[in-house]
C-alpha cells in the first residue's frame, strides 16, 4: 500500500509543471445536478466547474455515478428510458437543460467517446470519421473538403499513418485500440468545444492505452476534456484536476496534484491509497 502511494506521487510530480495553467475560466459549470434512473438516485446534488483547455478526471469506484454524471454533461443520460435529470449544466454560460434548448444541438458541441470502441460497422474508415459532419446544420462540404477534415481528425487522433492507405475499407478491420482512436477522430471531426471520454481505455491493451493517453494529453491544448476513469494512475497521468465521486456524490475536487498528495477528505484518501474500490 505504501509503495502504491509513492508510485502515485511519482506520477503526480510529473504533473506539477502544469500547475501554472490551472487558473483558466470555466468552460462548463454544473449546478446542483441530480440524475435518476427511475427511482434510483444516481447523481446527488453535484456542483462542479470544468475549466477550459484542461483535462478533468472523474474517479471513483464502480457504481458511484461517475459515468452517469458524464452522460448528463451532453444530455445523453436522458436517452435511457426512465432516466431523469434535475439541476443545471452550463456550457459557456448557457444552461443546456434550459427550456427550448435542443439536446441534439448540444451533443454537436460536446463530443463523446465510450468505453468500448463503437465504429459504425457498415461504414468505411473515412465515412466513420465524416459521420458527424453529415448532421451539422447548414453546412455542406465538398468531397475534397471532407477528405481534408478526415485527414486532420485522423492526424490529431494519431491514426492517420496507420490507416491512410485503407480509408475506404471497413472500420471493423482495425484493432481495438485503432477503433478507439477512430472513435476519437470521429468525435474530433466536428470540432466540439468539449470532449467527454467515458473510460476510453477500459477495453484496451497497455500499448493502445498509452497511445490514447498521449492523445488526450496532446488534445488538451485546444479543447476541454472530461475523462471518467477507473484507473487512478491514468487520472494522475493525464489530468489537471480530478473529481472523486462516491455513492453519487462529489466528495472532493481539486488540482490533480493536490488530490493525490494532500486529499482533504478521508474517503478520498482511503480510495486513492487503495483501501476500497
Amino acid at each position, binding site marked *: 500500500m505504501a509503495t502504491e502511494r509513492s508510485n502515485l506521487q511519482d506520477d503526480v510530480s510529473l504533473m506539477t509543471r502544469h500547475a501554472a495553467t490551472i487558473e483558466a475560466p470555466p468552460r462548463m459549470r454544473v449546478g446542483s445536478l441530480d440524475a435518476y434512473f427511475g427511482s434510483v438516485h444516481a447523481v446527488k446534488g453535484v456542483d462542479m466547474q470544468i475549466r477550459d483547455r484542461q483535462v478533468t478526471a472523474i474517479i471513483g469506484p464502480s457504481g458511484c455515478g461517475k459515468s452517469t454524471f458524464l452522460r448528463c454533461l451532453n444530455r445523453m443520460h436522458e436517452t435511457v428510458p426512465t432516466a431523469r435529470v434535475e439541476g443545471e449544466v452550463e456550457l459557456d454560460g448557457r444552461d443546456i437543460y434550459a427550456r427550448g434548448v435542443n439536446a441534439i444541438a448540444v451533443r454537436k458541441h460536446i463530443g463523446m467517446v465510450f468505453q468500448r470502441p463503437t465504429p459504425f*460497422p457498415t461504414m468505411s474508415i473515412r465515412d466513420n470519421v465524416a459521420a458527424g459532419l453529415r448532421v451539422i446544420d447548414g453546412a455542406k462540404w465538398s468531397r475534397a473538403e471532407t477528405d481534408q477534415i478526415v485527414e486532420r481528425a485522423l492526424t490529431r487522433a494519431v491514426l492517420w499513418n496507420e490507416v491512410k492507405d485503407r480509408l475506404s475499407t471497413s472500420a471493423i478491420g482495425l484493432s481495438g485500440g485503432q477503433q478507439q482512436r477512430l472513435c476519437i477522430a470521429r468525435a474530433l471531426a466536428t470540432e466540439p468545444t468539449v470532449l467527454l471520454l467515458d473510460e476510453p481505455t477500459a477495453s484496451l491493451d497497455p500499448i493502445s492505452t498509452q497511445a490514447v493517453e498521449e492523445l488526450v494529453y496532446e488534445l488538451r491544448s485546444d479543447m476541454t476534456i472530461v475523462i471518467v476513469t477507473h484507473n487512478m494512475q491514468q487520472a494522475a497521468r493525464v489530468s489537471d484536476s480530478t473529481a472523486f465521486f462516491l455513492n453519487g456524490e462529489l466528495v472532493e475536487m481539486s488540482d490533480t496534484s493536490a488530490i493525490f498528495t494532500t486529499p482533504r477528505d478521508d474517503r478520498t484518501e482511503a480510495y486513492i491509497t487503495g483501501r476500497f474500490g
Partner: protein
Amino acid sequence: MTTATPPMSPPLRPTLRQRAFSERTVRTLKRRRIVSGLMLAVLIGAAVLAVLPLIFIFGHLLTLGVSSLSWDFFTKMPKPVGETGGGLANAIVGTLILIGLASAVGLPVGVGAGLYLAERKGAKLANGVRFLSDVLNGLPSIVMGIFAWQFLVRPVGHFSALAGGVALGAMMIPMVARTTEEMVGIVPVSLREAALALGYSRWRTSLSVVLRTASAGIVTGALVAIARIAGETAPLLFTAFGNQFWSTSLKQPISALPLQVFSYAISPYDAWHSLAWAGALVLIALIFIISLVARFATRARFATGGGD
C-alpha cells in the same frame, strides 16, 4: 538404429483407493460414451429425416419435370390441348410481376412496422401490433385471398394482378416485420448511443445507423419471405385468378406458376401433366435460388466489436 529413450519418471503406484476410483471412472466413462453415441445417432437420424422430404420432392420433380423443360418452356405460350410443345412464359412472367407487387406492398410496410416494434419495445401499441402480426403470420393464406377479393376484386368487378400482389404482400408484412424487429434488436445499443452522441436525431440514428447496420439481416428476411410467397396458390385463386394469354397489365387477371401448375395438374391431359411437373420444378428451383441468395447475404452479416 538406436533411439535414445528419454529419461522417465518412475511409475507411480496408485493407492487402492485411487485404483477403485479410476475403475469406477472408466466404467461410467464407457457407459457415458455409449449413451452419447446413441443420442447422437438419434439426433442425426432426425436431422436427416427433416430434409428427406425435400430431397425426395426435388428428385421426383427432376425425374418427371426435366423432360419437359426446354427453351420453349420459358419463352413460349401455352398451347391448346392436342398440340404438342408450348411453354409457361406467361406464368413465369406473371409470378415475377406478382413478386414485385407483393414486395412493393410488403417490404416498406414490414420494415417500417419492424423498426417501430424494435424502437418502441415496451409500448402498449407495440405489444398489440406484435401479437396481431403473429396472428396474421399464422392466418391461412386462403383467408388472405378472400380478404383481397372482398376489397380489391368485388368493388372493381374483375380479377386483377394488383389484387393478387396485395394479397401476397399482406402475407409478407408480418414475416418481414418480425425479422426486421429481430435484426434491429441485435444492433448494439452502443452504436445507437454513438450516433446520438454525434448529434444524430432519433429518426436519423434509426435510419442511417441502426437500420443500415441491420440491413444484411433484413435483406435475408425479405428474401425468405419472398421465397415463401412465391409458391403461394390459395391467395391467388380469387385475386390474380390466372390467365391463358399473355398479360402484363396490373388491372387484368394474370397467370402465375403455382396457379398454372394447379390447373394443369387437375387437367386430364398427359401433356399438361408433364408441363405441371416442369412448372413445379421451375418454381422450386426459383425458391431454391432465392434461398441461396439469402444465405449468401447472411454470410456478409455485420460483425461488431472486432478488434485484435
